[in-house]
């Protein structure tokens, strides 16, 4: 017999509801900062895109948009996995290497059929993700160093498989794999559709499944989560595995798009992914995050890169400067807002 079904609700003497002991002003500012957190990147994206379409003739063309969309698809998939990891308060620095590894394995595997081409990267990269997760969750090692080591090890594995970078496996034209990577459906590249599907699935998993709740709980307050019954270790292992799987998948798709397993890819991709996730409104300290935000973050980075290319006179390295600055600004804002909230 629970108390809730019992009696008349208690009303307290004063008119204020017992729940809110905050003045209305700070509640409003809390809502405002939450709004900025979640949709700030989208607003910036829209503004920058609008400005760009007016400033550059070739920006808003169907071709350009389609190209931007397809080339951002791969980073987006990686960022999806990274979102889960960061929400648990961790970080995965190995995704760049796993991306490259996935591509090479897919290209190599394509000789043995599409199934092998897709399953091999998933298997290997997923396995590395499991190892990452185990070291973080069970051995309690710091995520950044575990995944840093994995980054190195995965790249080593990549070199070993490709005879020290000498081999570049090609994917046969007309194969299913190539079609997956290069074909279009309804005007947009297949990778774009795959990415969208994954993001929808990711959003559902994160917001609408028990596992998703556990991810937020572990990142928000690990001790409390354990006390509330959340399987902390299992959740952590799963997110690193997911990150590995998605990085491998992204690499495989990218290889399909390029029709070959290029070995020098993925350098710095982990930073791009982290930047995209953070810019998109996910807290680096964990506990709060949006899958949609990461997608927006990726697009924003891509648009900036495109704009810089359009300008032509500017070196493409400006994009890195801008990305770094963006990341710094967003992180400062996050930290500052977080501290203000604590003091309230």
């Amino acid at each position, binding site marked *: 017999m629970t108390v809730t079904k019992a009696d008349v609700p*208690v009303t307290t003497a004063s008119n204020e*509801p017992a*729940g809110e002991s905050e003045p209305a002003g700070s509640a409003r500012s809390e809502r405002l900062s939450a709004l900025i957190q979640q949709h700030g990147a989208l607003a910036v994206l829209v503004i920058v895109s609008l400005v760009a379409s007016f400033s550059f003739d070739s920006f808003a063309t169907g071709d350009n948009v389609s190209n931007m969309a397809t080339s951002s698809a791969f980073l987006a998939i990686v960022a999806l996995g990274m979102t889960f990891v960061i929400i648990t308060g961790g970080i995965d620095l190995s995704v760049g290497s796993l991306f490259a590894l996935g591509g090479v394995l897919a290209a190599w595997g394509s000789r043995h059929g599409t199934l092998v081409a897709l399953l091999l990267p998933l298997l290997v990269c997923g396995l590395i993700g499991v190892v990452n997760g185990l070291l973080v969750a069970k051995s309690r090692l710091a995520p950044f160093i575990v995944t840093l080591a994995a980054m190195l090890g995965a790249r080593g594995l990549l070199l070993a498989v490709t005879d020290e970078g000498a081999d570049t496996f090609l994917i046969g034209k007309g194969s299913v794999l190539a079609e997956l990577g290069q074909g279009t459906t309804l005007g947009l590249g297949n990778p774009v559709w795959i990415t969208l599907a994954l993001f929808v699935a990711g959003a559902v998993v994160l917001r609408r499944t028990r596992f998703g709740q556990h991810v937020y709980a572990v990142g928000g307050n690990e001790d409390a989560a354990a*006390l509330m019954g*959340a399987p902390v270790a299992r959740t952590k292992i799963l997110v690193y595995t997911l990150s590995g799987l998605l990085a491998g998948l992204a690499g495989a798709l990218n290889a399909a798009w390029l029709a070959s397993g290029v070995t020098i890819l993925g350098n710095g991709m982990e930073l791009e992914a982290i930047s995209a996730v953070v810019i998109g409104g996910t807290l680096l300290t964990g506990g709060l995050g949006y899958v949609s935000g990461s997608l927006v973050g990726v697009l924003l980075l891509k648009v900036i890169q495109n704009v810089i290319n359009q300008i032509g006179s500017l070196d493409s390295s400006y994009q890195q400067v801008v990305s770094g600055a963006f990341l710094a600004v967003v992180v400062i804002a996050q930290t500052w807002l977080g501290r203000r909230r604590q003091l309230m």
Partner: protein
Amino acid sequence: MAPPAEVLAVRGLSKTFPGVRALDDVDLTLHAGEVHALIGENGAGKSTLIKLLTGVYRPDAGEITFQGEKVSFATPLDAQKAGISTIYQEVNLIPLLSVARNLFLGREPRNRFGVLDVARMNREAEEILAGYGVHVDVRRPLRTLGVGAQQMVALARAVATDARIVIMDEPTSSLEPREVETLFTVIRRLRDAGIAVVYVSHRLDELYAVCSTVTVLRDGRRVHHGKLADLDRLSLVSTMLGRDLGEVREEGLTKFTGEHHAADSEPVLDAAGLTVPHKLHDVSLSIRPGEVVGLGGLLGSGRTETAKAISGALPVRSGRVTVAGTPLRGGSAPAAIRAGISLLPEDRKSEGIVPGLSVRENIALAVLPRLSRFGLVSEAKVDSVVDTFMKRLRIKASSPHQKVGELSGGNQQKVLLARWLAMNPKVLLLDEPTRGIDVGAKAEVQKLVDELAADGLGVLLISSDLEELIEGSDRVVVLKDGAVVGELTGDDVTEDKLMRTIAGDSQPVAKEVASDG
């Protein structure tokens, strides 16, 4: 009407940690619908008992019978699933997650596709919380709620998981009076619904308002249990503190000489109107050079907070501290230290010693800038300072280079004292200076306090050891629930008077306390 069923029976529970017997042969019985107060000072064993009941620790001896069956919980989760829930002082939920999701974590309602039915979850959360007098938007993050409301969410979660026993650990320490009332109403409804409540608190008024039975722990043992109505406030306090009324105590059980000559001069420290939300309310006190001022009160009365506020370790919303006539600017620790205030914190392990560094480094830590030129440390000067204090305080270590983390508690405390004495402070704030150290070191520290006062230092002494407090202080300022409720001077500095002031009694009542052996 049938007597209420026994829901928990604890027999002979014991737990020992290296060097300390935290719980010694404790019994406890709970019936359905009973609101049971569990009280005791620091080190009494309350938190150990709770941790044993909730599966954080496993007992070394004794047994726990829950709802008629012997149980042994491997993890807190097991205890929760069995029906024992705990509400903690710091709300142990997920602050960034929404109220509804917190309430339902792990038990979220699902729709026919197998995914979370968010609409239903939100709706049910609203209904449940309304029953607790909480009307909020359940989609907002938990941390946007006031602490009282957050406690209610924690409580609602506990009840919703079919708890038969709800343990509340200092639930009201951050609540407004209005929220406390709401909590009590809910507790009464839990009682009516047959759920047993274990209420841990030091706030006497609350205990008498809502609890029916009481268990008092002291030094790991149960020293009293029974109906709360049978025990008046004063007897309760004296049982907690271990003093039987009317007993005359021999002087000289501590090493204090009992004679201080406080200069009849301006105070060396003057703290006025210190206020920290929920912790201190307008606390003022002053210390003259050569005077030892004791700060008395129960656990949670704000003693540590006062010391930290004075020394700049705790930011105050309002209040002013003056040292030797000069007001302290910028309430930070370095500013206070520069002005001559030194604090020996209560938690020496995490806020006092730097465990990985040597004795030498620890002693020299604060005074280092004075011992260096152009940033280069003068090892000779450091050696000299360290040597002086190791001798004077008789610090026992294999060498000054031994890691301070390896020393005994008493020696660690001495190292900390040395650190501050090396700064030549004007005011020394000592928070539980002899807690957890052996008898010999205790005596040495007490003697030292005497010497320092004789040298002209102003000393603030916080101690849960009544004897030490009374015999070491010239005056005692009494705190209760964060406010000053009295000051004892001259002949009034006795344990008796102290307990009365705390209990709020003004009349002597000589009642025998039925205590257990």
